[in-house]
């Protein structure tokens, strides 16, 4: 006897629930919960990390990310404008930059900047500057494409209105187009900020002092002195303190939209 379409769909759904339960049970039986507890939830070690995990590591992660984001945003805007320039060499330079830094692992870029810049310019930058250049340099490549899409999504009539009021091309760009573009790209920019927060973990290769540790380095350093993986869990939770609210913010901004006349970024 043939089974109706709806019945079949129902059976398939039951099967999916069943599979999930089986996998959960198998994992639960196989795992050694005592070991897991010992490995990840050692209360004494967790306590020993406070308050410096917050006052040093979390704080530094935020500072490094903020510096990188600020520099990346500025450089990204310049790259976006270069990509839209009518002067071909500007477009080429921007394209090469963007493709290179998006295509190469951030870790390699950091190593290159850390060892390469002092050789190339015969000078040692302060650590914060190096962090800013490295994180921002990579972030800029991603943000440039987002900003360019935002600028192009501003309706043409906005520029025409600005020009008809006597604004120059540059003045219209600064006063009218860029502010509107940033409203449009606020959600994707917030996502870039989340990615950058996680990328900030890569600057451990810059060989920082104890008071310069960010979350990952701090966690690994505590790990090397303790028999438990608890520091990694704590560090991970601290990242979530930053990234979860940003994720909510991004989705909120996306839902709220920006009102007024505008096209979709994808258009």
């Amino acid at each position: 006897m043939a089974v109706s379409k709806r019945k079949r769909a129902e059976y398939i759904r039951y099967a999916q629930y069943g599979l999930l339960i089986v996998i959960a049970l198998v994992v639960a039986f196989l795992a050694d919960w005592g070991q897991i507890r010992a490995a990840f939830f050692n209360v004494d070690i967790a306590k020993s990390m406070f308050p410096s995990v917050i006052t040093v590591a979390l704080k530094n992660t935020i500072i490094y990310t903020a510096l990188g984001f600020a520099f990346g945003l500025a450089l990204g805007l310049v790259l976006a404008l270069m990509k839209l320039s009518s002067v071909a060499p500007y477009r080429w330079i921007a394209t090469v930059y963007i493709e290179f830094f998006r295509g190469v692992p951030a870790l390699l870029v950091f190593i290159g900047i850390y060892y390469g810049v002092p050789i190339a310019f015969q000078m040692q930058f302060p650590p914060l500057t190096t962090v800013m250049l490295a994180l921002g340099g990579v972030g800029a490549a991603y943000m440039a494409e987002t900003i360019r899409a935002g600028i192009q999504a501003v309706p043409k009539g906005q520029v025409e209105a600005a020009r008809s009021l006597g604004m120059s091309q540059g003045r219209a760009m600064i006063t009218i187009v860029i502010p509107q573009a940033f409203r449009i790209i606020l959600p994707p920019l917030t996502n870039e900020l989340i990615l950058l927060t996680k990328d900030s973990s890569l600057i451990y290769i810059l060989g920082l002092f104890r008071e310069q540790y960010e979350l990952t380095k701090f966690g690994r350093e505590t790990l090397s002195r303790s028999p438990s993986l608890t520091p990694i869990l704590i560090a991970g939770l601290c990242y979530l303190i930053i990234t979860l609210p940003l994720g909510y913010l991004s989705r909120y901004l996306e839902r709220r939209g920006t009102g007024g006349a505008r096209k979709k970024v994808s258009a």
Partner: protein
Amino acid sequence: MSETFVEITGLKKSFGPLEVLKNIDLKVDRGDVVCIIGPSGSGKSTLLRCVNLLEEPNAGKIVVNDVELTDPDVDIDSARTKIGMVFQGFNLFSHLNVLANLTVAQRKVLKRSEEESRRVALHNLERVGLSEKAHAMPAQLSGGQQQRVAIARALSMDPDVMLFDEPTSALDPELVGDVLGVMRQLADEGMTMLVVTHEMQFAREVADKVIFMDGGYIVEEGPAAEVIGNPQEERTREFLARVLDPTHHGPSDPV
């Protein structure tokens, strides 16, 4: 004694292979209202946009208030402050409230003080009857209100001439009257105006001169009563028949 304020001679404009304006000569006297009518695609918007050089002409000369805009050395940004433009789609700056829409170019281009630009803006909002909307965002306004704000924005630069490109075409019928009322008042105050429109009643009552365009040429021009009331050219008659009495023509007739 009338004085020529806008003078266009031998204007040509192409988009790639498409010749849109084929040799336009046009004179507008100071204080006159000139309405431009004609079928879709005949080049009306392009002509208007050439007057403030939003479109770069391929040939010809455009002189506004004794300034030759087609002179390569002209300061076009400064010239444009004296030529107000109102678009079919309003084009209010969507990130700025009404007051800021009216003050931003005064501040950044004319370098007026915050206080003065604000005073000028509020005065012009009052002229278009929207004083109470100074702090609204464009998206909170009806189309008719947005268009009146756009007019006030252009007026805030103290222009000598105003260009209107189908200012009421995007509006619900019941909102058209408010915008036309503002334009009529402007005309009464002596503003020089070039208006692309399909509002024949407005053209008939307000225009000093009506121009009928077709195929990139000015086919017929003259006083409103002549061109609309008693057209000499066959093409003008056909067009007017379609516009004034659209129900008597099948859907196959392009309007």
